[in-house]
């Protein structure tokens, strides 16, 4: 099967039931996408599959056949740059481990809704756990990115 990762086409001939996460991390050595729970409960592994936020830890390679995946390493464009800039401006990350997933989830939110209210942010980000407790800064950074864009 073929899958496009951050714009580059890749071949995959292994176990189609393997989650996308391990293709990225073990085979492509792209370790920006993180393992946190393995059950789609924490959001650390969030990637975009054809633009939709997707938990790579439970999504099998079969679901990626012929489709396009964007990871943190490929997060760019106006939304991605605005978010990364806001993350840095507000010194959001503490340990940083969950932040790839937070950024990918936030990018999906802003792609769908360029001016999210607090309730929209809560709803979109509810499945992305941060044990360092950076939630207030993530919220502020999403708003900053949204304002910078609009």
């Amino acid at each position: 099967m073929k899958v496009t990762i951050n714009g580059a086409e890749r071949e995959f001939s292994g176990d189609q039931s393997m989650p996308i996460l391990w293709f990225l991390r073990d085979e492509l050595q792209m370790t920006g996408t993180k393992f946190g729970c393995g059950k789609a409960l924490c959001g650390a592994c969030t990637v975009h599959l054809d633009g939709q936020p997707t938990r790579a830890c439970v999504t099998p390679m079969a679901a990626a056949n012929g489709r396009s995946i964007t990871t943190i390493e490929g997060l760019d464009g106006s939304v991605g740059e605005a978010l990364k800039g806001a993350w840095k401006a507000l010194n959001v990350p503490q340990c940083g481990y969950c932040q790839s997933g937070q950024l990918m989830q936030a990018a999906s939110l802003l792609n769908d809704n360029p001016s999210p209210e607090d309730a929209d942010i809560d709803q979109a980000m509810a499945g992305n756990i941060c044990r360092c407790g950076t939630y207030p800064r993530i919220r502020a950074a999403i708003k900053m990115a949204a304002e910078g864009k609009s």
Partner: protein
Amino acid sequence: MSTLDRRQFLKVSLSGSAFALTAQLLPGRALMAADHEGGLSPSLFVNIDSDGTVSITCHRSEMGQHVRTSIVQVVADELEANFDDVQVIQAPGDPAYGDQNTDGSRSIRRNLTRLRQAGATARQMLRQAAAERWGVDIRECDAVQNVVTHTPSGRSLGYGELAAAAGRLPVPEADSVELKSRDQWRYIGKAIKHVDLDAVTSGQAVFGFDVKMENLHIAVIARPPVLFGTVKSLDDSAARAIPGVINVVQLPALQPPAVFNALGGVAVIATSTWAAMRGRDALKIEWDHGDNASYNSPEYMQSLLETARQPAEVVRQRGDAPGVIASAAHKVSAEYTAPHLSQAPMEPPAATARVSDGKAEIWACTQTPQSTRATVAGALGLEPEAVTVNVTLLGGAFGRKSKPDFSVEAALLSREQGAPVKVLWTREDDIRNGYYHSVSAQRIEAALDDEGNTTAWHHRTVFPTIFSTFNPAAMSPGALEMGLGFVDNPFVVPNMQLERGQAKGHVRIGWLRSVANVYHAFATQSFAHELAVAAKADPKDYLLKLIGPPRHIDLAAEGAEYPNYDDPLEAYPIDTGRLANVVRRVAEQADWSGKRAQGRALGIAAHRSFLTYVATIVEVSVDTDGRWKVDDVFVSIDAGTIVNPDDVRAQCEGGSIYGLSCAIGQITATNGVVDQGNFNDYKVATMPQSPHQVHVDIVESDAPPAGVGEPPTPPFAPALVNALYEATGTRIRDLPVPPIIATS
């Protein structure tokens, strides 16, 4: 700011280094220059290349507290090096650095002075080299931002041009090196952004899970579900049949004490993570659960409570609290319980080991590279010098990663396999086979006089001790744990008696952010509020009355052993004036007396831990169904001298939200097996449950630096339940706080 890994650094340094400085284990020992021609000791803090590159070594583990930034701030300030151009080197585990165990909120409090000296010594040597070059007095030579200038003539030389000559000078004695005055600080005390921001936001940061190397094997382990359980029978045929599975290895059974040793069980080694995980799922293991299969949380909690109701060993005594209470007209009593918790860092434990030719190299997300080195050496029968421990970034830690058991597993498996092995813990492994925050029960009784003054306080704490992890016979909490918010009770009550009961440990008990302070502050600060209610007083005013006049508490005079976080009481007294100050400041910040909207209420708590004073106000709202929510949080913190105010803020934000998680999470066991396994049943705070903002007020202080990473956590849970009481009239004494609270 750029970073450089240690290998690259060594290569660069060996080829072109001119000047290196070593700071030694003990504060006050002389700083020594290493041989500038290449004999670079690994115990470097400062290195300046002849091309002008300044490298600063961080010997503490980065787990979200931004220590890689704050240490550079300190050294670069005194060195007068341009912060943005500094290369940060992460130190491997080596006693030459001094203590590296990144716990106990002590990176800054224990290193501020010695790292300032390391930077200042280098600066002085660079000035001396310039003075000799120009034949002038050193006092006419200023070092500013990587350049030494002869002020009268305006001549100048860059640090790189001076490095070789400076490296040949004798190192001045520490007491002859002048440190900057506070008003000269350029970086210390400034909000500087974290050095790893670019790496983190681009997915390039390397954590323990992310270590890569040639021929790397991946292992996951089926560990005994019950502590000290053993494998009765194993059928690994299905596992071995899975493509990618290379080997199935039974690890030696763990014998008490657990300490930091591998838990035992059955490892599946594979060419990929997925194959290893599938292989583990396919193992057929029958376990002998052993004695700890008797461990059932509800019955165990009852036994803790029964112990808490009986007289126990007195650890601090003032006056006659039991006598006063027995004859008092007004008595208040309450029992508080709190369950086990799991640190649950977002990155579960992970370690890579390469063992060959009588040597071992480890790459791990460890808080404690030195005990990793010692424990791995012991497990492999090697000298510590034969073990190298490289520290990756840590994806959170909170105390879990101060236990090196996962590195031991990797080392044992690498030796067995004859190949590099990375051991990955899944979330279930982390939740079910942890080093748990202790379960606890406490009982407090008090007497009130007719004016509502508390005249006696009698408090008993019962919990299985951390020491049971190291000595199965240990039944009583140690002075260490008693000193975490229990014997150091700051209240001015004339009669006080504090006691510790006995309890047996059935799981590995370990540290979690602020440790026993969590449940001791929960009980003490909840009960302070209950007394205010009984006295019909304002809770903030009553808390201030309990804290009493400004004074330094002399615990020794009341028979208490008190380690004071291993720092001297002379420098860090228990200062009730500073505690009262943060209470007053947080009340002002939150507009304590101001009117709140319907359904909203405030709760307050204050606690000294890790030598730092924190007061927290939590504002909650409760809807008509009893569903509660934290709307706002206010924190006032006095941590003495601080290095980076934005990092202090971040720790107050995160520490409060961690405190919220401590209030809603629980780990329980049935027949010795932990009931929870992942974030579906081990509840931690999510964004919708968390406050939109944590308002942080930092007391400006030139007192000695104190802890920051842990102190914001303990006051949160009591402030929360106090607020919920104000909102509903219902008192939560047993954690976790339920999601719905009936109004009474």
